[in-house]
């Protein structure tokens, strides 16, 4: 009897919780679908295959970075260095491309992964705040980038006929390879997050760090891994971008970390850690890119209004999420 009473109580609480959960989880998705539908109706060009392809391609680089960011944020951390690592990765890839495909790909992954590893070690082993550690690496990576490009004077070109360019420029049905790379990584990321012990450790670390330690979760190792991952993925996104642009452009990635954080949050991942999904993040990227695209479709909008619109949009999404979560 008491037992059934307990379950009755839960019965009373749960359906509402589930309902909210659905709304929360799918809230961003619903918003995305609505926005796409409206944009399609209002701007005939929005739905053109070319536009959609470009939308997906532009989103793919951010998705790659934001996957890493999602892991980091779920552990309760933050990674401000991704924008710089993205630019650095691109430069390294372009420079490495003179030694062949493998060098072009491996160099950014290794170097950016290494910087991520150092981020992780500093955060996990010394109890320094992720915000400040990765802020320092933001500066460091930018400095390193300038150092290897003669203060930015050298832009390394990737030979147009190299296999590496194909990685950025090749298409299947007109959809660029980076889209597929991002898609595969998103699926993998979701799998790792939800279906592996490491993923569970990520949730546990962010959900209740002290408890996680006592539950035998290798918290320090988990943190080191997520920052390494985030650095590596930022480097990869940079490499893909370099392949796409056919050169190691030095002036990209400034402020990209804030975009990445914004899409992760819009996707419903808790900034305090312990909860989040890769799918949400992908949807978050979709929302941001669609908004940008629509602003372009309007065409006549004063460019200064664009950031106002983005800011207001971000606000609406987080406020709505907050209200739904109540």
């Amino acid at each position, binding site marked *: 009897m008491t037992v059934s009473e307990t379950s009755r109580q839960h019965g009373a609480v749960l359906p509402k919780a589930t309902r909210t959960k659905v709304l929360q989880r799918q809230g961003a998705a619903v918003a995305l679908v609505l926005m796409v539908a409206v944009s399609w109706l209002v701007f005939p060009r929005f739905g053109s295959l070319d536009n959609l392809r470009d939308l997906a391609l532009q989103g793919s680089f951010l998705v790659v970075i934001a996957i890493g960011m999602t892991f980091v944020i779920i552990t309760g951390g933050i990674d401000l260095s991704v924008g710089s690592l993205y630019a650095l990765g691109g430069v390294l890839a372009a420079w490495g491309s003179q030694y062949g495909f493998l060098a072009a790909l491996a160099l950014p992954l290794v170097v950016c992964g290494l910087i991520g590893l150092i981020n992780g070690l500093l955060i996990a082993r010394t*109890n320094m705040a992720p915000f*400040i550690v990765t*802020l*320092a690496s933001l500066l460091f990576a930018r*400095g390193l980038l300038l150092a290897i490009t003669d203060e930015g004077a050298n832009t390394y070109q990737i030979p147009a006929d190299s296999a590496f360019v194909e990685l950025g420029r090749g298409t299947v049905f007109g959809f660029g390879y980076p889209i597929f790379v991002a898609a595969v990584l998103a699926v993998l990321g979701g799998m790792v997050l939800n279906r592996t012990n490491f993923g569970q450790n990520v949730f546990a670390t962010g959900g209740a760090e002290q408890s996680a330690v006592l539950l035998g979760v290798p918290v320090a190792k988990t943190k080191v891994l997520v920052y390494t991952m985030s650095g590596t993925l930022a480097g990869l996104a940079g490499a893909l971008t370099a392949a796409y642009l056919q050169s190691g452009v030095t002036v990209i990635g400034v402020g990209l970390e804030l975009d990445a954080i*914004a899409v992760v949050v819009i996707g419903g991942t808790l900034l305090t850690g312990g909860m989040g999904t890769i799918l949400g993040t992908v949807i978050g990227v979709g929302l941001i890119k669609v908004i940008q695209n629509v602003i372009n479709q309007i065409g006549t909008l004063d460019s*200064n209004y664009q950031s106002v619109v983005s*800011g207001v949009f*971000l606000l609406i999404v*987080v406020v709505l999420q907050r209200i739904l979560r109540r």
Partner: protein
Amino acid sequence: MTQETTQAATRTAASTTAARTRWLQDNGVYVAVAVLLLFNALFTANFLTLGNFTTQLVQAAPVLIVALGMALVIGTEGVDLSVGAVMALAAAVIPLYLGAGPLVAIVMALVVGVLAGAFNGFLVARVGIQPIVATLALLVGGRGLALVIADGQLVQLHDETFLELGTGDVAGIPISVLIAGLLALVVAGLTNRTTFGRQLVAIGGNRKAATLAGLPVNRVLIGVYAITGVLAAIAGVLATSRLAASDPADMGLLMELSAITAVVVGGTPLTGGKVRVLGTVFGVILMQLVRATLIKHNLPDSIAQMIQAAIIIAAVYVARERR
């Protein structure tokens, strides 16, 4: 017996190293400033001149003013990414009202700061949005709004009285430095000597407990963000006056990161519950001296950025809270 004595010996040794790290943790930023001053005195040409110190203080003043507000917000376990955008808003507002006199222009700029800050505070306290995200929205949109107000243009300013703020001095001390110093004293008094200040720290230390203790949590939070907003606006006004132009496109760009760095380097933990005002002052001075040293030694941008990174890590490493 022997074992016990060795243990006792290691214990005292351990406690003296503990005491030493503890001391460094509390005073690391002062030591760092002293070391950097010494280095410059020895190796930097023309460093020990009044003019040079004045320059450093003048350049540090706006950052300090913003960092004071940031320290308060961080004390509540929050953060304010919008301070740079608020500076830009303040800058954009000034030319609109300068015709009505500098006082009107300044007051309007400060009003904008208060409103922006209170808006942030409202989002954080009432709506319950994470401070980073709440203020990110204003970071993204605020500068755009400033540019819309200013029609995207830099405006040259000619009002002598207004420009005096940036160039004038009282008894040899530049006005902006004086204002910054005064504000530091006010904020120190506010945190340590007023109900508001103690409540702010308590909220940062344990918000739930503070609520149950009947503290006016929402009011304090909104107040703190409003203060931060108005401080950012003051910094924007001073910087605008010193530049002799309203430049919303660049005013306060990346200021949020400089301010947070200074606060954290000054020993205020990002986890809240503690505000170190003097530490913040020295955190700002430390970062200012680092930049000055790098420029004066004509280091290229690349090396300069890497050294800054290393110094931030070192300073925060020393000041970090041990587990």
